[in-house]
């Protein structure tokens, strides 16, 4: 009787836990790490875009276009 009760309780909780895990969005892709990577990506793109814009505005001036080219190469 005690064994059956303990087995039912333990398995019941594990069954619910596993069901909740399966339906959870963050199981295979971590939200925090994803957010950090996306932010870094967008900032990198913004940095290279601003570099390119600066290069364009300065009429293809040596120093800036070099920096922008380095960013674009990355």
């Amino acid at each position, binding site marked *: 009787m*005690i*064994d059956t*009760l*303990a*087995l039912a*309780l*333990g*398995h019941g*909780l*594990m*069954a*619910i*836990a*596993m*069901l*909740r*895990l*399966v339906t*959870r969005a*963050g*199981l*295979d*892709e*971590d*939200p*925090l*790490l994803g957010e*950090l*990577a996306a*932010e*870094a*990506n967008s*900032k*990198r793109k*913004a*940095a*290279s875009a*601003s*570099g390119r*814009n*600066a*290069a364009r*505005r*300065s009429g293809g*001036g040596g*120093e*800036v276009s070099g*920096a*922008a080219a380095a*960013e674009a190469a990355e």
Partner: protein
Amino acid sequence: MKDLFFLAFIGYVLLLGLKRPFLWVLLYVYIDILAPQRIGYSIITTLPLSLIAFAAAFGGWLMLDRKEGARFTLRQGLLLGLLAYCWWSTGRADFPEEALTKWDWVWKALLFAIFLPLTLTTRARIEGLGLVLLLSVATIVIATGLKVVTGGGGYGELNFFVDDNSGIYESSTLATVAIGLIPLLWWFVKHGTIFPRHWTVTAFAAGLTFAALLVPVGTEARTGLLCIAALAVLMLRYTRRRFLFIAGAGLLGIVALPFLPQSYYDRMATIAEPGGDESASTRVAVWKWTLDYVEQRPLGGGFDAYRSNRFTYVMPVKKTEGNTTAIRYQQVEDKARAYHSSIFEMLGEQGWPGLAMWLMLHALGLWQMERIQRRWKRAEAETERWIAPMAAALQMGAVIYLVGALFQGIAYQPVMLMLVGLQTGLATYCARIDSARSALGRSVSRRAAAQGKMRGAVAA
């Protein structure tokens, strides 16, 4: 009936794993701890459940998992080194047949501990593994606690689901594991997201803690009492009102005393006078024998090398006749006594190199958890504030295990090796957050530099 129940549960997890293969890793954890194939009676005993679950877990990870952020760490390297060393020592063991029997389960436990951190790439996975590990042990602990409350118990007399005194179903091992998981249990109450904060979760945790504390009482395992003492000392670090905590713990102990059976007092009394008990006397004799043994064989004698030990020692034997108790000192001869300590188990079986690897594995874990606690203790965001408390819980669990391991041969205990895997997974996850942050920092400074150059170009 039980067989059908277990098979239905396993089938359910296998099905869920089709959507998320990580669940097959959890299935292996469950099968390895609870061993349903040993609890059942008919069909389930004939199925190689452990093998099926491991094949699903490893195959699922290999073929279907993203493996993003999976890293091979120093501690996994140590485990791999230990595995290779054990394989080598098994080939030259003193008792080849017995050594092969032990090797048969040790390599699986070590391999799984190496593999586990590779799968723990997200917070949800770390939490999921911790929860399944906890609930698998909890299932045994709840049954044990209820049996003690309803009047069962006694050293070696309490019936668990499996009645063969091996693995986690050995009373001292269960006591150590149950006490060691209490800090992790309370981490789930405060930071769990699968079962979020709710009074029912707190009530369950309180009941489970009580049941875990009852395991050493019900099984009369002396090591369990030491583990409870270790837990109390460790908790002092995280308690703000220390004097109140000490007074409360003392009061709780005094209140509990009248409820303990006389046999429990008798057995615990032998902690202070090890000479009065055969099990305690042999420990000291075996440890001395092991030290002599490794002088001859510093590289160890392979698994179960203790079988060649033989020694005599003097032990007091009490004889009560009427009102008089006579104590006679009798010479006792003993042979093939187990190590009763993981330190000496490692030393005798794997020699100094094996012991060094094992000690380094656990020392590195304690240090790593300490470092994580200090690094993340001020984190306030919901996505990060769970990290430092989890490192604290895993560190406390490891210390309690090591205290228990001083007096039991549980060096390769699978649950504890899974905790090592969980520690490694957490450390890798934290390192990934740090490296993502520094990548973000780099891109921000690059942007600032680009803007600075742009301003410079415009000014020129």
